[in-house]
């Protein structure tokens, strides 16, 4: 079976890889490109720990074929900080202790970033609905939701 050659853009860098037709994007990110920040927990679209942003849209990389990335623009957790400086969301998650074991955290951060990209001034209800596809078994969600709302507030003030 011949492999498929894919040219894509991940975190603002051109990337090429060869994949099997059935490889998921998550599999290639983790096992071929050494981008292991995205996690596989359920593998069926239920938990959000594999969340990435594909052409501006939040998606589960476990429910996407690696071959589909041809010509696309992907954002993963590895591209969130810039030049060693944490993204405001990352910083706030740390300050607010919005993580414990950390398995769900990259997914929550990508989902929160996608939310603020689309809607910089969400209400608490909007945050809770938007993050409903991300499961955390440790924190109880409140700290995560508060962290996202505070970042949105900070952005408003500095705008």
């Amino acid at each position: 079976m011949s492999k498929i050659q894919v040219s894509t853009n991940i975190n603002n860098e051109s990337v090429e890889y060869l994949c099997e037709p059935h490889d998921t994007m998550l599999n290639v990110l983790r096992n071929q490109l050494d981008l292991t920040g995205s996690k596989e927990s359920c593998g069926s679209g239920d938990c959000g720990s594999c969340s990435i942003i594909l052409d501006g849209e939040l998606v589960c990389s476990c429910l996407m074929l690696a071959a589909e990335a041809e010509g696309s623009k992907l954002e993963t957790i590895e591209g969130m900080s810039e030049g060693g400086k944490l993204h405001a969301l990352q910083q706030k998650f740390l300050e607010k202790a919005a993580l414990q074991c950390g398995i769900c955290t990259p997914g929550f951060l990508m989902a929160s970033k996608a939310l603020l990209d689309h809607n910089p001034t969400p209400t608490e209800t909007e945050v809770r609905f938007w993050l409903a596809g991300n499961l955390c078994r440790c924190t109880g969600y409140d700290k995560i939701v508060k962290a996202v709302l505070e970042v949105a507030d900070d952005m408003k003030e500095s705008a």
Partner: protein
Amino acid sequence: MSETQYLAAKTIDEAVTAHSKANGSARFLAGGTDLLVQIKSGIKKPKLVIDIKKIVELNTIKEVSDNEFVVGASVSGANLNRNNKFTKLWPGVIEAFRLIGSEQIQGRASLGGNLCNGSPAGDSVPALIAAGCIAIIAGPDGKKEIPIENFHKGPGKTVLENGEMLVSLKFPKREINSSDAYLRMTPRTEMDIAVVGCGVNITLENNVCTAARVSLGAVAPTPLLIKDASDIMIGTDLNSDILDKVANLCIKACNPINDKRGTIDYRTKVAGVLLKRSVLIAIDRIKGN
């Protein structure tokens, strides 16, 4: 699925030809939120996966004339939800579509996938039937059009033959004083499968109903258009006596399964309740409340 091949089709012709040559061993891939789950769990083992999202027509939302929309089969929920005019004209279709999964799922899931997957409980289907939506299908013998209420043949079965692909969904021109609504009942509030879904679409002129369509999902082997229930609404002011009658006709049309999510008695009763509630929501929307 080691023998699977992947093809990103660029045109409708390319997709349809590849599918028809594969003689039943190919599957179209839209958002993959059903198909990839089924492949991973071994329920489906296609030899060829044909990605249709790169075909322009399938991924486009078009207003063909004022208030008349054609939505590409693979347009995602997140994408359609950003079309302010469409969401204003068809709030019931949008609320049904948006119930499907999380934001991550919405980034990929399509109306076409929800329809073609063939589940009797697909959330968008009753809303599309109530809307009077038409499926535009391309196949080896050209294009054809089928009303959504005739699209399903049984659980997992649709009218699509080998080589046939859903291209788009054609919505009727939206009349003024019309609106729609969709409600579903699930044992959990989110991320669950409907035990009953109910879509209604009505037009009111001076408080008199001049057009109505009612559809139920998850209460029979296929989603249903409840024609007699729709018909008795027309010419009335939709008072509570009429709605009782409509609800009873809905209850009669139910032929649900009995399972852990809901017994036959429960599903049937809930169908009547959801009908009344969704009519009231649609009326409120028309009146701008």
